[in-house]
C-alpha cells in the first residue's frame, strides 16, 4: 500500500500529502468554473484513453483517420506517481457520524474507485453501497462550487471577514445568541475544536440533528459479536445493512452461516420480527411480519417467557414463533444475541438489554460501545428550534445536513429558520437549507481535505485527501477555527497540530505515517479535551419520549412507518445517479420511492402498484404512489425518506415524494392514525425485475440445513443434468491449460445488499441510463441481484441471487455473433470486444441468463468533463450500439498477470479480486483459477452444494453457485 510523504506544505503552493499529484494545474483556490484550466484536463483525459465518444469512431477507424491527440506531461512529476499505474491511499468516510475505513484508488491523482480498508475492524475490506457511490459525488458537477451569499458569488476571504464581523458583537454576552447545529460528529479533532469554541463562548450552544438519529438507543448502544452467537433474534433491526457497524455484523453472521461440506456443518439460527422487509429480515431463518407497534408487546411476551417480570399483553399473535424463539434462546444462553433497531422505542431497547443480561449474553456476545466524550453545553434540536422561533438566535452556523428539508414537520423549522439574523450553511451540496441561508460555504468532499473520524467500535482513522478540491472548498475544521482565530490555518495543520500536541514526540512522524498508511490509528490517542458532558451518545434531539403515545393492539388500524431509503438514505444521496438507479431491495424500484403496502391491504382496498393514494396523518396530507410489498406487515404502510428534494442537482430533481412532510417529532419512525384513500391518478413506477418466482426452473437451488445433512447432494439433484463434460466436440481442442478462471457465488451467505452491483458499476464505467430507459428495460448493470419469493405472499421466504456473466465454455452467445465480437480466450473467459461489435444483439437473445447489456443509445454522450474523471482508465468506455457484459474484471486479471510476468512468477490465488468480490461484506463471491486444486475457489466448487444455473442446458458455466440453506426450526416448519 502506497502512502504519501508527509511533509505538510501549505496550500496554495502545493497539494497536501496524499493529493501530491493533481489532475490539472491550479494557481489559486478561487477556481472559477469554465476558466481556461479545463482544456489541459481534457487533453489529459484523451491521453488517459478516456474519450468514450471516440469508440464510435473506432468502429470506423478502418476507413477514417484518427483525430490527432495530445500528450500532456507533468511540469513537476511527483516522485510517488508512475503514469499509468494506480496508487492506493487509506482514508475514511462518515456514515451517520461513524467512521468507515476506506482504501481509495487514484490514477495520476484522480480517485476513481473506493474499496474497504482490510485493516479497519469496522469494514474488513468491504464497503457499503454508499461508500462505493461517494466517488461519484466527488465529481458531481451539481456540487456547490463557490461561496455564495444571496446568490452572489464571493471568495472564501470575503466569508472569513463576514464571519468575524458577525461574531465580534456576540462576544460581549459570551455568544448567548450564537448557535451551532451539526450532524453527529465523531471526529476527535473537530470535537476538540468545537469544545474550544464553546469554551470561548460560554453562552453559546450546540445541537445535533440527524433525521436518521439513533436516539432511541441512546445509552443502550451495543456491539454484538455474531461469531459467537448460535441464536440471533432481531426486533425490527436492520443490523446487516442500515447500521453503522453493518459491514462487520454481516461478515460475522456470514461466518456463522457458511457451509461447505456436511461434516461439522453448523449454522446460527436467525429469527426476525419486522413490519417491513429489510435486508436483515430477508436473511432470517424465521421471519415474521408484525406491525412496528406490536414489536414491543412481542418482545415483552418473550421476555416474560424468559422469566423477566414484565406485564404480558393479551391476545398476542405468532405464539409458535415466540415459543420457538424462547426455546432456542433458553437452549443457548450466553451464545445468543437479541438486538433491536433504532426505529423501536427506548423501552424495547431497555428490555432487550435485560434479556441479553439475563441470557448471559452481556460480555459474551454483546458489549457496550466505547464511550465517546462530547463537549458540554449541548441542547436538544427541538429546543434550538424553539429558541429560533423566539428569534433568540442571531448567528446560526450549520455544519452539513439539511434541516430545512428533513426536520420534523411539527417543528415548523422553515419559519423558525427565517427568524435567525445570520444563517450560515456549510455543506457539499447547495440544498434547501443553503437556499435559505445568508451564506453558503461549500464543504470539501472527504476525498478533498484532511480530517479524522471514529468508527462505531471506537477505532479512529485519519481522513486524508486524494485530490485538490475540485471547486472552492472549506472544511469544518477551518470554519470552527475561523470562529476563534482571525484567519484559519489549513485543515491539515489543524489536524496535525491536534494530534502532535504542542511539542511533538520524536517518534511522532513515524507513527503518523503508519497511521496514515494503515488507515487506523493504533499507536497513539489524540489528547482528549476537557469534555464536560460524558454522555455516551448525543442527547435526544427529538422531543422527549413521554409524548410518544403507547400503542395498544389497535387491530386493523393503519400504521405509518418512516424508514431511511436503502439507496439515498435521508436524502443526502439524492443527486447520485448510481444510487438512484440501483434497484431498491425486493421491489427493484429505481428512480422513485413508493409507499409500501401489504398484499392483504391491497386486496382489501383494491389497490394496485402505481396507484396514487392520499395519505392523511396528523392532519397533514401527502400524495404518494403505491407499491405492494410481499412480507409487509398487514396494516403497516412504509414511507421511504429522502425523496422529493427541491433544491438539488439535475439527477435528484422531481424524483419521488417527500415523506418528511408527514414526519413529526413524536412519530419519527412509526405511529398510528394513518388513513389512505385512493385517487384517480397513477404514477409510472419503474422496476428492473417483474417476476419473483423461479417457476420451478433450475435457477435457484435452496433447502434446509437438515435436508442437506440428510442428503448432501440434494442441491445437485433437482434437474436432469447432462453427465459432466458431456459434449459432441473434441475436448482436446480447447484444453484450457495454464490459468482457467472461474467463480463461485455462495447464495447461503449472500445477504442481497446490492453492493456488488454498484461496485461493478464504479469499476467498469457502467453508465447511468435514467428512469425512462430503465422503464423500457435497458438498465446496464453487469451483475444483477435477483430476488425470489417462495411460500406465502403475506410472508414469503426471500432469496437473493447475484447474477453476473456465467462465462460458459459452450457459450451460446458466441456461436451466433456474425463478426466474432464475442469469443473465448484460452483461459476460458467469455470476451466481449466492444470495438468489433456491430450490435446485432443476437448474443443477448441467445443468452439463457440474460446477463448481456446493450447500449441502445449514446449513454455516455451527456457526461460533463468532471463526470468523465470518475471513469476507470483501464476499462473502455462503451458507446452507442455495442453489447457489453461482465468480464470478470479482465482489467484486474491483466494487471495481475503483467505484475506476475514482471516478477517472473505465477499469479497467486486470491491475487485477482473482481470488484464484486472485493466489495462483498460477506465474501459470497470467490474468483480463482480452476486449474489450481488448492485454490479457495476449487475448495468451494468441490462442495456438494455447488451447482450450475440452468445446468441442464449444458452451457458449462464457469460461474457456479452454492445452494442456499436455511437453518429452520423443525417445530416451526411442522406448525406452518
Amino acid at each position: 500500500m502506497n502512502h504519501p510523504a508527509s511533509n505538510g506544505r501549505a496550500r496554495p503552493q502545493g497539494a497536501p500529502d496524499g493529493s501530491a499529484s493533481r489532475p490539472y494545474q491550479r494557481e489559486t483556490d478561487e477556481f472559477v468554473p469554465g476558466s481556461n484550466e479545463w482544456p489541459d484536463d481534457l487533453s489529459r483525459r484523451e491521453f488517459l484513453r478516456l474519450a468514450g465518444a471516440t469508440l464510435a469512431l473506432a468502429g470506423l477507424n478502418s476507413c477514417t483517420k484518427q483525430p490527432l491527440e495530445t500528450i500532456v506531461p507533468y511540469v513537476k512529476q511527483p516522485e510517488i506517481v508512475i503514469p499509468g499505474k494506480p496508487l492506493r491511499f487509506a482514508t475514511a468516510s462518515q456514515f451517520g457520524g461513524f467512521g468507515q475505513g476506506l482504501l481509495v484508488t487514484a490514477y495520476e491523482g484522480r480517485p476513481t474507485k473506493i474499496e474497504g480498508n482490510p485493516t479497519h475492524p469496522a469494514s474488513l475490506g468491504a464497503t457499503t453501497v454508499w461508500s462505493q457511490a461517494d466517488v461519484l459525488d466527488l465529481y458531481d458537477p451539481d456540487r456547490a462550487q463557490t461561496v455564495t451569499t444571496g446568490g452572489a458569488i464571493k471568495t472564501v476571504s470575503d466569508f472569513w471577514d463576514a464571519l468575524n464581523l458577525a461574531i465580534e458583537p456576540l462576544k460581549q454576552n459570551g455568544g448567548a445568541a450564537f448557535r451551532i447545529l451539526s450532524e453527529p460528529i465523531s471526529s476527535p479533532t473537530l470535537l476538540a475544536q468545537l469544545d474550544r469554541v464553546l469554551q470561548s463562548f460560554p453562552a453559546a450552544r450546540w445541537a445535533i440533528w440527524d433525521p436518521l438519529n439513533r436516539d432511541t438507543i441512546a445509552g443502550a448502544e451495543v456491539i454484538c459479536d455474531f461469531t459467537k452467537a448460535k441464536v440471533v433474534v432481531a426486533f425490527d433491526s436492520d443490523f446487516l445493512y442500515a447500521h453503522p457497524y453493518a459491514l462487520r455484523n454481516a461478515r460475522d453472521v456470514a461466518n456463522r452461516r457458511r457451509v461447505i461440506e456436511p461434516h461439522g456443518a453448523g449454522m446460527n439460527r436467525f429469527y426476525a420480527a419486522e413490519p417491513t422487509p429489510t435486508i436483515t429480515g430477508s436473511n432470517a431463518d424465521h421471519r415474521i411480519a408484525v406491525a412496528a407497534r406490536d414489536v414491543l408487546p412481542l418482545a415483552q411476551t418473550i421476555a416474560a417467557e424468559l422469566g423477566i417480570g414484565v406485564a404480558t399483553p393479551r391476545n398476542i399473535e405468532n405464539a409458535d414463533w415466540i415459543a420457538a424463539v424462547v426455546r432456542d434462546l433458553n437452549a443457548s444462553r450466553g451464545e445468543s444475541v437479541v438486538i433491536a433497531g433504532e426505529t423501536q422505542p427506548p423501552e424495547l431497547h431497555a428490555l432487550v438489554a435485560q434479556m441479553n443480561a439475563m441470557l448471559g449474553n452481556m460480555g459474551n456476545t454483546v458489549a457496550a460501545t466505547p464511550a465517546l466524550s462530547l463537549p458540554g453545553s449541548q441542547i436538544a434540536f427541538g429546543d434550538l428550534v424553539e429558541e429560533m422561533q423566539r428569534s433568540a438566535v442571531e448567528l446560526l452556523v450549520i455544519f452539513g445536513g439539511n434541516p430545512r428539508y428533513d426536520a420534523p414537520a411539527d417543528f415548523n423549522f422553515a419559519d423558525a429558520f427565517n427568524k435567525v439574523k445570520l444563517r450560515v450553511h456549510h455543506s457539499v451540496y447547495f440544498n434547501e437549507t443553503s437556499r435559505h441561508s445568508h451564506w453558503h460555504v461549500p464543504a470539501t468532499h472527504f476525498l478533498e481535505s484532511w480530517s479524522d473520524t471514529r468508527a462505531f467500535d471506537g477505532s479512529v482513522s485519519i481522513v486524508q485527501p486524494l485530490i485538490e478540491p475540485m471547486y472552492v472548498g472549506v472544511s469544518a475544521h477551518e470554519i470552527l477555527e475561523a470562529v476563534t482565530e482571525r484567519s484559519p490555518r489549513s485543515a491539515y495543520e489543524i489536524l496535525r497540530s491536534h494530534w502532535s500536541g504542542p511539542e511533538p514526540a520524536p517518534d511522532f512522524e513515524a507513527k503518523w505515517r503508519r497511521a496514515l498508511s494503515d488507515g487506523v490509528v493504533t499507536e497513539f490517542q489524540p489528547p482528549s479535551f476537557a469534555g464536560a458532558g460524558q454522555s455516551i451518545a448525543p442527547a435526544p434531539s427529538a422531543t422527549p419520549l413521554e409524548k410518544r403515545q403507547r400503542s395498544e393492539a389497535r387491530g386493523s388500524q393503519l400504521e405509518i412507518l418512516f424508514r431511511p431509503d436503502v439507496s439515498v438514505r435521508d436524502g443526502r444521496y439524492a443527486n447520485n445517479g448510481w444510487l438512484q438507479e440501483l434497484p431498491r431491495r425486493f421491489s427493484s424500484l429505481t428512480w422513485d420511492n413508493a409507499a409500501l403496502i401489504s398484499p392483504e391491504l391491497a386486496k382489501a382496498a383494491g389497490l394496485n402498484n402505481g396507484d396514487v393514494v392520499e395519505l392523511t396523518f396528523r392532519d397533514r396530507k401527502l400524495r404518494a404512489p403505491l407499491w405492494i410489498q410481499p412480507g409487509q406487515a398487514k396494516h403497516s404502510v412504509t414511507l421511504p425518506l429522502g425523496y422529493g428534494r427541491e433544491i438539488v442537482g439535475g439527477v435528484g430533481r422531481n424524483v419521488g415524494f417527500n415523506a418528511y412532510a408527514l414526519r413529526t417529532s413524536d412519530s419519527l419512525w412509526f405511529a398510528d392514525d394513518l388513513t389512505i384513500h385512493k385517487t384517480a391518478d397513477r404514477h409510472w413506477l419503474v422496476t428492473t425485475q417483474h417476476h419473483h418466482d423461479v417457476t420451478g426452473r433450475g435457477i435457484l437451488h435452496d433447502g434446509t440445513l437438515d435436508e442437506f445433512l440428510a442428503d448432501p447432494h440434494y442441491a445437485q439433484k433437482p434437474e436432469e443434468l447432462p453427465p459432466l463434460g458431456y459434449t459432441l466436440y473434441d475436448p482436446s481442442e480447447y484444453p484450457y491449460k495454464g490459468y482457467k478462471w472461474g467463480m463461485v457465488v455462495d447464495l447461503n451467505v449472500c445477504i442481497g445488499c446490492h453492493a456488488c452491483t454498484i461496485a461493478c458499476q464504479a469499476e467498469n464505467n457502467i453508465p447511468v441510463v435514467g428512469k425512462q430507459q430503465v422503464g423500457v428495460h435497458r438498465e446496464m448493470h453487469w451483475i444483477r441481484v435477483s430476488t425470489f419469493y417462495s411460500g406465502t405472499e403475506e410472508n414469503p421466504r426471500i432469496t437473493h441471487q447475484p447474477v453476473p456473466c456465467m462465462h460458459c465454455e459452450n457459450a451460446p452467445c458466441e456461436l451466433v455473433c456474425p463478426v466474432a465480437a464475442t469469443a473465448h480466450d484460452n483461459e476460458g473467459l467469455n470476451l466481449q470486444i466492444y470495438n468489433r461489435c456491430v450490435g446485432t444483439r443476437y448474443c443477448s437473445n441467445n443468452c439463457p441468463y440474460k446477463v448481456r447489456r446493450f447500449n441502445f443509445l449514446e449513454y455516455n454522450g451527456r457526461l460533463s468533463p468532471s463526470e468523465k474523471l470518475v471513469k476507470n482508465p483501464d476499462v473502455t468506455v462503451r458507446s452507442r450500439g455495442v453489447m457489453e457484459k461482465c468480464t470478470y474484471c479482465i482489467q484486474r486479471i491483466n494487471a495481475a498477470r503483467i505484475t506476475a510476468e514482471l516478477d517472473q512468477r505465477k499469479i497467486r490465488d486470491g491475487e485477482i479480486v473482481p470488484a464484486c468480490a472485493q466489495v462483498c461484506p460477506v465474501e459470497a463471491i470467490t474468483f480463482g483459477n480452476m486449474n489450481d486444486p488448492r485454490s479457495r475457489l476449487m475448495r468451494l466448487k468441490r462442495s456438494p452444494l455447488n451447482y450450475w444455473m440452468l445446468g441442464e442446458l449444458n452451457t458449462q458455466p464457469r460461474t457456479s453457485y452454492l445452494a442456499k440453506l436455511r437453518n429452520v426450526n423443525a417445530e416451526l416448519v411442522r406448525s406452518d
Partner: protein
Amino acid sequence: MNKTYGLLAEFSTHEKLIHAAEEAYAAGFRKMDGYAPFAVEGLAEALGKKNRLPLLVLIGGIIGGTGGYFMEWYANAISYPINIGGRPIHSWPAFIPITFELSVLCAGLTAFFGSLALNGLPRPYHPLFHIPEFDRASQDRFFLCIEANDAKFHPKETRAFLAGLGPLSIKEVPE
C-alpha cells in the same frame, strides 16, 4: 448498297418458318438464322444450332462452391482461428449453407453472362435493323435470313429458292 448481308424472307406463321428452315437446311444452307417473336420450338434444331451453355454453368457452380468453402475454412481455421463457444475451429456443418449459396450464385452468373456472351449481346447495331419490316420480328412476323457469306449463297438462286417457300415478302439486307 454495294455489299449485302443476306436475303430475308418474311413468313406469317411459325409453322411456315420451321418448314422453310428445314427446306433451307436440306438445300445445304448453313449460315442462316430464323427470327420469331417467341421461342419457336424446334426452330433452332431445324436450323442446326448447337448449345454448350449447361457445361459452363456446371463449371461455374463447382468453382463457386469449392471457392466458398475454402474461403470459410481459410478465414476461420487458418488466417485467425478463434475459440467460438467451444465449437470446433473447422466446423464444417456450419460452412455448408454458404458453400451452397455461393455455388448457386456463381452458376447463376455464368448462366446469365454466358448466354449473353454466346449470343454476342449487347449488339445494338445489326444489318437486319436496316429492314423496317424487321420490327415485326419482335411482334407477329417470322423471318428466315440466309446470309451472304454462306458457301452456297447466290443472290439470284437463293432468292428464287426462298420465293419457292411461299414467303410474304423477300428483302435484301444491306451490310
